[in-house]
């Protein structure tokens, strides 16, 4: 196969990814603000069926229903925090991609930095000891 064919195949494969841009249903909003609100919110929530997808991207029936619900609430003028608590009160914190920062999740958020810090301490003291040993 010559180079041209390989490039062509490569580009054709890339073109299939464009389909994702049009994956969502068409929702009509009253303002750019509302459209942005919809975009943001639907990317913040996890689809509980296809759990690594956002509610925006997922084709699962539950995701479709929740997109419709969010759309309705935005047209009613509900705020993002109202919509968020609507969903969290029904599905729990797991529906948020970013877990909330509170007493229960404190360790979840802090522990990576904590371990990194402990690691640095360890390396630091190790170096000090070796340095001292070298001096003797």
């Amino acid at each position, binding site marked *: 196969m010559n180079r041209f064919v390989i490039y062509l195949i490569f580009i054709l494969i890339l073109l299939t990814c464009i389909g994702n841009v049009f994956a969502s249903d068409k929702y009509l909003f009253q303002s750019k603000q509302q459209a942005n609100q919809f975009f943001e919110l639907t990317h913040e929530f996890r689809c*509980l069926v296809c759990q690594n997808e956002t509610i925006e991207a997922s084709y699962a*029936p539950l995701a479709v*229903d929740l997109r419709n*619900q969010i759309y309705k609430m935005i047209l009613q003028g509900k705020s993002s925090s109202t919509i968020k608590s609507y969903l*969290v009160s*029904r*599905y*729990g914190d*797991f529906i948020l991609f970013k877990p909330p920062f509170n007493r229960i999740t404190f360790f979840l958020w802090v522990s990576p930095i904590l371990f990194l810090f402990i690691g640095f301490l360890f390396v630091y*003291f190790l170096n000090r000891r070796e340095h001292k040993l070298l001096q003797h």
Partner: protein
Amino acid sequence: MMKWPGYFKLILPVIVFGLLVYFLWQGLQYNPHIIPSPFIGKRIPDFKSQTLANPNHSISNNDLSGKVILLNVFATWCYACRAEHSVLMDIHNSGEVAVYGLNYKDKRTLAKQVLKKYGNPYNKVIYDPSGKVGINLGVYGTPETFIIDRRGIIRYKYIGPISPNEWQDDILPKVKQLREEAAV
């Protein structure tokens, strides 16, 4: 750095590794599709719907309180629901506890057909073709079964089909325990 005995320095990484393995192993046991319900301890949300049997009859959250009951979310398109159907029939026939149904995002005629053909374990069935009642209950996948106490408060939620063992060893004892609670 403090002076630590030599063997301690050898054991420490092993201990840390052991701890890591323990926690990661525990993590493997968790099923991500079993999501804890935020409704435990909360009252059933208000709703009013037609019953499956008769569009002229309605059923509301008030009908679901007064005694300990099971509320089972099912649909004809749900394959796993067929699996638990015989268990539900056993529960219904045993008379131990009343079972109510939530027919979720389904077609009335299909649901009625299936219940007629395979048996109807439900005292009454909420007809929820749009899924609105389901969303208000935090339903994300069928089958799901709620245990509701006398006061209409959701006490437990089961995700997935109920096996005969789960009924005997888990659900029935919980139902009995809830019955012992003093009526408020």
